[in-house]
């Protein structure tokens, strides 16, 4: 029973990180039909910048703000200057975002080196909550809380605000939205800004418990993409469910079948896709 609880807890906290990245991915994909392979670059940059800033100022929250700011700026810049001109041409998107990914991963390697580094969280966050025989790191509880908070926040933003309505309209039918007078450029920029900011946040929080190293960008990107595939494109609910599903299966798979651990992750994904190709909550595009 203990094993089950601990693994579930670990799985959910990992799922929380994946959700933060997957949510941005699914928004970007839903609105702009862009498969952003560079998304994890925001994760890396956010984490690394936070490490540097925390190193210089000693303040965790300033680090978070700076890291997220960098993520947002880089994301918006990428969208504005490079991706906007490409439209929906898939091959072009893949190549250019992959190019950016290589560029940023190597940049991080050049600036910060290849050794894993940790974001230093404040003392009170690194303690543990002890319940009987089980120990729960407070940081992970906070992480899960943040993910749930973000999920709720995004839901409120998208369902209840006027801007959110415009965002939804752009996802449903881009041309009609433009025809009604919605400024697509703002919407696209915001999609990237949200995605970039959240991915950077994921990088900072993830960097505290998983460490940041350049190659991790690719690893976490795959997880985020699988979460989006399983959950369904353009669906935030799907991203959340997909991320949690992935985190749980990954943890249980690794704990129960170490030799088949990655297989136990991708095989259920393949089965879900065989049954529902657009993902659990996705819509056919």
């Amino acid at each position, binding site marked *: 029973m203990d094993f089950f609880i601990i693994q579930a807890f670990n799985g959910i906290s990992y799922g929380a990180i994946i959700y933060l990245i997957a949510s941005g991915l699914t928004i970007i994909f839903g609105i702009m039909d862009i498969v952003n392979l560079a998304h994890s670059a925001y994760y890396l940059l956010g984490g690394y910048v936070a490490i540097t800033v925390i190193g210089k100022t000693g303040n965790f929250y300033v680090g978070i703000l700076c890291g997220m700011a960098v993520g947002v700026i880089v994301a918006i810049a990428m969208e504005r200057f490079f991706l906007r001109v490409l439209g929906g041409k898939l091959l072009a998107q893949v190549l250019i975002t992959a*190019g950016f990914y*290589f560029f940023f991963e190597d940049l991080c390697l050049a600036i910060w080196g290849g050794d894993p580094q940790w974001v230093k969280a404040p003392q009170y966050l690194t303690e543990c909550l002890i319940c009987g025989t089980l120990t729960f790191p407070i940081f992970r509880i906070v992480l899960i809380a943040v993910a749930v908070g973000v999920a709720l926040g995004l839901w409120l933003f998208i369902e209840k605000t006027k801007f959110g309505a415009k965002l939804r309209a752009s996802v449903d039918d881009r041309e009609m939205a433009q025809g009604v007078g919605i400024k697509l450029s703002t919407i696209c920029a915001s999609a990237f800004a949200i995605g970039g900011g959240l991915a950077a946040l994921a990088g900072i929080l993830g960097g505290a418990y998983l460490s940041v190293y350049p190659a991790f960008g*690719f690893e976490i990107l795959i997880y985020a993409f699988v979460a989006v595939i399983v959950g369904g494109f353009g669906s935030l609910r799907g991203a959340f469910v997909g991320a949690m599903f992935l985190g749980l299966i990954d943890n249980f798979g690794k704990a129960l079948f170490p030799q088949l651990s990655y297989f136990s992750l991708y095989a259920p994904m393949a089965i879900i896709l065989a049954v529902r190709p657009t993902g659990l909550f996705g819509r056919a*595009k």
Partner: protein
Amino acid sequence: MILGFVGLLVLLIILPHFLSRYLCELLTQALILSIVAMSLDILLGYTGLPSLGHAVYSGIAAYTTAILLTRYHASFPEVMIASLIVVTIVAALFGLLALRATSHSFLLITIALTMLAWGLAYRWTSFTKGENGIAGITRPDLGLPWDFRVAINFYYLIFICFSIALILMWAVVKSPFGKSLLGIKESPSRMQALGYNIWLHKYMAFVIAGIFSGFAGVLWVYYQGFVSPVDLEGIPSLEVLLMVALGGAGTLFGAIIGAVILVFFKSLVSVHMERWMMLMGIVFILTVIYAPEGISGLARKVYNRLRHSGQSTELPVSKSSM
């Protein structure tokens, strides 16, 4: 175009005599990878299916070959047949899954399927030796009078395999089947209205492309003498995609050009620059912005402009027949 084809083959035949052993081995690598790239071109350039998981077939073939060679001491023909059978089965299975989706979803599913294979290679250590990879593979002993450990001999063996693959793939794309693939890429609805079974065509293209990629995988193991999970990762698949895009999708030769350029670029630039990966990223970006149809596209534009200078500025409507 036949002239270009023959010219290329002649060039490839005489070139190694002028190259150092190192460059000769690089060219061998380029030829092997160009087989993978050409097979991806069938999928991407001719059928319009953007697959980001194409290296998985060469990787699986590589592992099959490596395991058979090191554990069961199989011979070259046995290894080739076994690997091709395995790859066909895998491609058939993966195709069933991947083709349930279109464009973006298809792309992501191919990535995920690659990771599935990678995960097995990485973690199923009792079978695949995991991260250590499988080493100790020597050049094939075909009972012929040439020692294939000599770079130039091995090059010619690979060149023969490459030519066979090239001729076969050429036959596929020039056949009525290949033409219908082009039609499907241009307008699936129209083809469906004409009565073609779109799914079956795509599926067959998928499996055929996988088989050729597997063929290259067998050669790759002999070349490298070693196989590891890295050969199944996302990066090789991305590189193959870049090769096709760099050279020009939809023209088999583009894939060859792209492969040669990328292999030489990677090896020669990484010697001088530590930040070669950043440069590669920039190459990706610049290719998309300035040469969206790749080098063969640029070449075609230049050729057309030269041909029509002095005449009216109207460019021919159809692609030059290849």
